[in-house]
């Protein structure tokens, strides 16, 4: 591979789990159509919702992964990321803002770049089930963002 090309994670993970003897490769979500809507307000007037795929609290192995929300005031000191497949050789997740940019958004709010950060942060750790994401998590997240009065949402998958 070219030293500067983005890593091909779909193929990389397929090979990794194939080396472990798993016969069926994980089927990543794919959709032929993608919704697209322009915001009705300038960004400086928008309420911005924030979604992370980290867990709000420590999760025992194999326990269910459900959407969870927390007030941003006070901000969480940390989130639980140990059971996610980020690159544990190359980096760490000790700095919350490096993957859940709550402080950055609050700074942009203070500057007037965005209108306001929504009052809640939403955690959506994946079950690696497309059905669960479509039928449970996504509708739950949408409802919570609407409750928050979000105009736009920033999703940062970890």
């Amino acid at each position, binding site marked *: 591979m070219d030293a500067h090309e983005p890593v091909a994670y779909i193929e990389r993970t397929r090979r990794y789990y194939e080396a472990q003897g798993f016969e069926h490769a994980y089927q990543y979500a794919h959709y032929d159509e993608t919704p697209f809507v322009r*915001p009705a307000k300038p960004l400086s007037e928008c309420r911005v919702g924030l979604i992370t795929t980290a867990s709000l609290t420590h999760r025992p192995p194999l326990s269910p992964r459900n959407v969870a929300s927390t007030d941003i005031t006070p901000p969480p000191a940390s989130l639980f990321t140990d059971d996610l*497949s980020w690159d544990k050789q190359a*980096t760490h997740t*000790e*700095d919350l803002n*490096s993957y859940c940019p709550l402080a950055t958004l609050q700074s*942009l709010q203070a500057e007037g770049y965005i209108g306001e950060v929504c009052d809640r942060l939403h955690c959506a750790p994946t079950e690696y089930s497309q059905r669960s994401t479509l039928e449970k998590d996504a509708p739950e997240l949408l409802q919570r963002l609407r409750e928050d009065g979000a105009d736009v949402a920033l999703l940062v998958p970890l």
Partner: protein
Amino acid sequence: MIIGSAKDIVEHCGVPRYLHVDFPLGNPCGKPWDRDMQDRIVRQGLSLLHSATAPNQTVFSPETWGSDQWRRQYMEVNDENRAELARKGEQLRIDRSVRERRTV
């Protein structure tokens, strides 16, 4: 909109707006503790909310991680670890089988 570092996964799915940050997985919003970089990345991502004209158009952050070793190492399979990965997979299947028997 999405800020992330797994370009092929996000593009395979199809999303309204995507800022790709070509970093190791874990810090898509900027290097740990680099507040200036984090500001630049999130600011650029949010700008896509109005600048994007259609879905499925990846925009690239100009930020760089500073090294490339991580590109090869992540979930690497080579002659040195192939046997260990096979053993690990077998153990995972054994553990799963035990759990399934316990729940019957």
